[in-house]
């Protein structure tokens, strides 16, 4: 396990090095002054500019400059947003939890719907229900997320009036910012309207989370179907059958557990996909998350925000990958011996 951990850590370090290198070079590639792109201080006076040049060591060689840039990032200084002139680290800390919350709920929905459906399809392999589930998965995977989002708003918000179309929660509720994960903040708050707020927040998250969940759910269907078919064909299942275990016993005791291990590895991969979908969905549903912020930064040509936002987001996704790798390794001892990484 120790070598496994060390290998992951070194992979993390090198990937981060490459990522920071890319984000560092973006400052040179974007139009405008490099040091202003680094820091985001568009209204800097001459003395402030001199200080910035000093801080980012712009007069030294490019390697020293990169070192200075790294030091700034490691100190948590991501520069300030050109558009709002507030520190990017603050904005990210405020917005990232909202995206994580939305993605987690979507992931949960995708798993709760996708995996059982995939198992059902595998158990009924080559029967009508299998085909129905597979065609649903194909259909769901092909629908573009922004179109689905608009349809969902049109149908559920405007047509039926069941669910709200924008935001995290009705603006009437004042929830103090503690963790940024809204449901936790609501439970921590001392508002007399706690439960009203909770139900309101739940109704706000349903539509965007379901829209995001659709594509990953279809992937989970196919993954779990394939994993289950493979497991059901394995010799220990045949042995179990031969021992006279009932069908339910085979499925619940042996098949599901072993099929799930295969799927968990892909959860991490799907999370990256999910965050990408969440970025588009956040724009449609006015969800105050990092994706909407990043897309707005692009349209406002807020280079510092784009550069630092991308760095933070990719770093976050990478951490998620490593975490799922650890979970997988903990569940499946065979994986720890894998000498070639993943």
């Amino acid at each position, binding site marked *: 396990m120790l070598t496994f951990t060390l290998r992951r850590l070194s992979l993390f370090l090198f990937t981060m090095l490459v990522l920071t290198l890319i984000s560092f070079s973006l400052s040179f590639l974007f139009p405008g002054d490099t040091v202003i792109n680094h820091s985001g201080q568009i209204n800097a006076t001459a003395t402030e500019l001199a200080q910035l040049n000093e801080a980012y060591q712009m007069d030294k060689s490019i390697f020293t400059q990169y070192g200075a840039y790294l030091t700034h990032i490691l100190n948590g200084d991501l520069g300030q947003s050109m558009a709002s002139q507030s520190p990017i680290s603050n904005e990210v800390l405020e917005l990232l939890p909202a995206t994580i919350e939305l993605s987690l709920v979507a992931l949960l929905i995708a798993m709760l719907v996708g995996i059982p459906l995939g198992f059902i399809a595998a158990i009924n392999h080559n029967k009508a229900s299998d085909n129905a589930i597979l065609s649903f998965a194909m259909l769901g995977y092909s629908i573009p997320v922004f179109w689905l989002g608009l349809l969902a708003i049109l149908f559920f*918000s405007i047509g039926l009036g069941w*669910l709200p*179309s*924008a935001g995290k929660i*009705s603006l*009437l509720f004042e929830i103090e910012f503690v963790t940024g994960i809204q449901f936790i903040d609501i439970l921590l708050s001392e508002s007399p*309207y706690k*439960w009203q707020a909770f*139900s309101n927040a739940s109704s706000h998250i349903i539509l965007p989370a379901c829209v995001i969940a659709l594509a990953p759910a279809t992937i989970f269907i196919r993954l779990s179907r394939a994993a289950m078919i493979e497991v059901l064909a394995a010799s220990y299942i045949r042995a179990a059958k031969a021992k006279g275990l009932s069908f339910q016993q085979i499925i619940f005791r042996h098949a599901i557990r072993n099929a799930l291990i295969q799927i968990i590895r892909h959860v991490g991969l799907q999370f990256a996909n999910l965050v990408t979908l969440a970025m588009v969905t956040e724009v449609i549903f006015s969800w*105050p998350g990092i994706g909407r912020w990043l897309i707005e930064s692009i349209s406002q040509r807020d280079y510092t925000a784009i550069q630092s936002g991308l760095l933070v987001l990719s770093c976050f996704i990478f951490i998620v990958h490593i975490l799922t790798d650890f979970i997988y390794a903990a569940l499946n001892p065979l994986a720890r011996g894998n000498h070639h990484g993943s």
Partner: protein
Amino acid sequence: MAVLTMNFKSIFSLTLASLVSILTGCNEGNKLSLSERSIIYCSEGSPESFNPQLSTSGTTSDASAKQLYNSLIVYKGKKNTLGPALARSWHVTRDGKKITFYLRKDVNFHQTSYFTPTRLFNADDVLFSFNRVLDKNHAFHHVSGGQYPFFQSVKFTELVEKVEKINDFTVRFILKRNDSSFLANLATDYAIILSEEYGQSLQKKKKPHEIDILPIGTGPFKLKDYRVGSLIRFYRHDEYWQEKAKIEQLVFDISPSKTTRLTKLLAKECDVSSYPIAHKKITERSDLTLESMTSLNVGYFGFNTKKEPFDNKLVRQAISLAINKQALIDTVYQGQAARAKSILPETSWAYDSETPELTYDPVRAKSLLEVAGYAQGFTMDIWAMPVQRAYNPNAVTMAKLIQADLKKIGVEVKIITYEWSTFLRRLSQGEHQSFLLGWTADHPDPDNFFTPMLSCSSSEKGSNRTFWCNKEYDQLLQSALSTTNMTKRKSYYAKAMAIINEEIPLLPIAHSKRFQARGVDVEGKILENFGGISFYDVAKRSINNDVNTLAQPEIADKASN
């Protein structure tokens, strides 16, 4: 193993049941939910500050004037007569130069997290508020830029000699000359009263600019929270000097995109929406209503009277006769505007119903052109403004329609448009031949139309882009301002309108309406007669059980404690 599956099932149904109960609300004990005591208003933009003195933008005064502040006097009733507000009563001397206000003695300022008042409203606050605008040496004059556009446009500093404090609850304005629009100016959304005590405390803290960002006023609501581009949250001012507002919380949901506003309205995420689109869709729904208010504005087609051929009155008349106004209104305003017969809207008290209107008559237009010596027609340009305004939602389309109309009498039209600020700059330099523009009045006094749009002084430096200057017309406006006799004023303005109709420096086209949509459960008047909005009278009807409405104030009181 059957036991295990049972367990799965029961756990599943249990979670489902608890989820449903959360979604349907566990608030049985709390009869009036938060949403029934609050209003969410989908507004069109972020205000620049919370002080209407500093801006003429509708967004800023909507979010501040009637919500956070009061003025000394207000317009009341259908006839728009002046009534008391923070001033109990007032007295004007016979020469019209001294106006004394007797102030209320029971007015509380807001108590908020950033300021706690120790005294009631008095004469010092009035002096503070007006001296900030008038006195260049006032400690707060230059805070937040030192620009007071409304007061500058009505030449307030040139009119007011000084403001005196007679005693704690009496103030006197001394004017340099008699001006009958003075009281009207004091009743606008811009002439609000700030707290002098708050100003002092900010000065001590060396944070004077906060006076316009964290406002303290006497109005029915107080500011709780403002996040630029996202929301403004107001709480009710419980010590309001009149009966307190019926709702406890007012939230402005800032949604600049008009489709987002429509979606939120349809999805019931906001109770009231500003400037809605898709009027037909809204009127079709039984749970929404659409209201409109004819604004005090006019969209017009102006001529540069200093340039050929429009220095000739006959040409101006001919062109005006050749334009089919009704078609413009049907197409450009989608019928949602009143046809303008004069520059003054018909809702104004000074409007003379006998003013003749130029009718659409291309035959007469053609003959007039012949008389003027342009039998072969000519080529002209029309400058169409590039932005949308209530008084002209689409100037380029309008210009195209006019182009088609004028072709019939042999006049070729080139349409010119620039980016907005360039457009205005070039217009002020007089590079144009004719132009499409408009005017929105700041208060209902008719002078606010006549003087800024067409007087000689505003043609030199101001908003008169026709460069038309008529001594007789100016004389009539002066006489109208120096009397307070309404009938006399009305007759002066009628004569002025007749001169405009004869000379046609511009052709008034339409007075547009301001629209607003709301859910049917929202009761009370929101759109004020003069542009602004006020949520003071608004209440939400509980749809479920009407018995609760009676008990509402009491419950609301308890909850706010």
